[in-house]
């Protein structure tokens, strides 16, 4: 694997313009989607098979350092987790990791079982009815393999979305968070930057100005398949109990008659 590529989304620089959302849609030719009422500017409500980049708009009274209303703006995207739930869940091997560390869905292999959809801790992966396959952000795989940055990062007017080598971006992000804290943003924090943290670190990591749940992000996302062992053992245990019961009953009855 070559040096890991990453996307650093600094929400303190986001102006919610949604250039990223449209640039993504344009480049990836994702098609029209009827919006739903979300109560504010945000559309759409969730990631979908036609929305890989999604700008979230959150009103937070008292959220500014001076106590004013904060309007938290955040461009959300697939996290390309180092330990990816979707990749673990995929029964066909369609979901794979590239040499850059990104996680992609091979559209020619995916058979649309949708286990990855519910296995993503962030609700990123979406099912496309017309292709019958799962879809999500690829970091513009075609572009990054040709030396171009992803369409969203390129369009972003304020460099809220930065694209580059992960190690470099993490260093930059750490400095930025210190600066913001000094400026009075007491809840400024990095989300997913730590490779020792949850999911082995996110290749799309974020600088947030409030706790993750404010942004509809899980505070401590876990790999769903982590429970497989325990659950399987439980299943086997209960099977044994039931099996033993059944077995005993048939034994009892077997004693009563000739063995066939």
């Amino acid at each position, binding site marked *: 694997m070559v040096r890991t590529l990453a996307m650093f989304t600094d929400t303190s620089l986001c102006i919610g313009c949604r250039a990223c959302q449209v640039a993504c849609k344009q480049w990836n030719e994702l098609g029209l989607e009827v919006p739903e009422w979300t109560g504010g500017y945000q559309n759409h409500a969730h990631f979908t098979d036609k929305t890989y980049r999604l700008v979230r708009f959150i009103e937070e009274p008292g959220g500014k350092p001076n106590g004013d209303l904060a309007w938290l703006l955040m461009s959300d995207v697939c996290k390309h987790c180092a330990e990816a739930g979707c990749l673990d869940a995929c029964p066909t091997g369609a979901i794979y990791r590239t040499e850059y560390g990104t996680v992609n869905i091979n559209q020619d292999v995916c*058979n649309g079982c949708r286990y990855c*959809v519910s296995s993503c801790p962030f609700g990123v992966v979406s099912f496309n009815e017309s292709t019958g396959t799962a879809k999500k952000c690829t970091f513009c795989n075609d572009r990054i393999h040709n030396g171009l940055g992803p369409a969203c990062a390129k369009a972003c007017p304020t460099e809220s979305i930065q694209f580059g080598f992960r190690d470099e971006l993490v260093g930059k992000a750490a400095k930025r968070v210190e600066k913001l804290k000094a400026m009075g943003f007491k809840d400024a924090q990095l989300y997913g930057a730590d490779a020792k943290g949850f999911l082995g670190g996110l290749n799309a990591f974020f600088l947030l100005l409030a706790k993750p749940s404010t942004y509809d992000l899980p505070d401590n996302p876990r790999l769903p398949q982590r429970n497989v062992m325990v659950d399987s053992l439980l299943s086997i245990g209960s099977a044994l109990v039931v099996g033993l019961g059944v077995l005993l009953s048939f034994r009892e009855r077997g004693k009563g008659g000739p063995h066939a």
Partner: protein
Amino acid sequence: MPKPPHWELMIVWYFFLGGIAGGAYFTAAIADNFGGARDRGVARAGYLLSLPLVAVCGLLLIADLGVPTRFLNMMRTLKVWDPMSIGAWIVGVFGLFTFVSSALSLSSSPSHAALRRKIGLVGIFFGFFLASYTGVLLSNSAMPFSAGEGWGKLKHADRYSMLVELLLLAALIAALGAAARPLVSGHFATLFWGGLIGLGLLLPLALDLLGTRARALGALAAALVLIGGFVLRYVVLMSVQA
């Protein structure tokens, strides 16, 4: 936030029928190996029932895929930690067992019967897996237990299956008539009414209808259903024996 996979009715049926298929095969194999001569019919019926059921299961599973023609892609990889991957394999492998066991159950040859009993013992493992892995599958997603629309539907299905179970039991008791007396008023009455109907069905149903969002209560409901399931099997089995 995590979102549901939009598994709809086909998958509910798959889970349900898979469970029955697995259970039927399991019962058949146990009866075959450990039961008496009068259990022979049970064994054969179980094997013969499990074959079409698992076939339907397979068809349901394939039909529900986004690209059904790519079902075989699941056979190109095996991930032991992945219930979906295992599940796909199990359907196939268990299908094979039900086929062989069914075929052999039609034969009266003792050597076939011996082979069938041995195969049955191995097949139990896969049948059981089919019946139970779905739970693992469902619990091993990023979805919180009560969130999401499609997830809600699965939970609804869960609720309805409890109701259906109640109705089936009522029908069973009615059909059994006097034969059901040990169950409803005899030695097992307390267990039946209190354990199965009350704890195992009505209480979880009530918890569910209350729409509780508390994880702990959800888990309690699930546990109660499990207990109920066990009690059901127990009381049915034991009362019949009595």
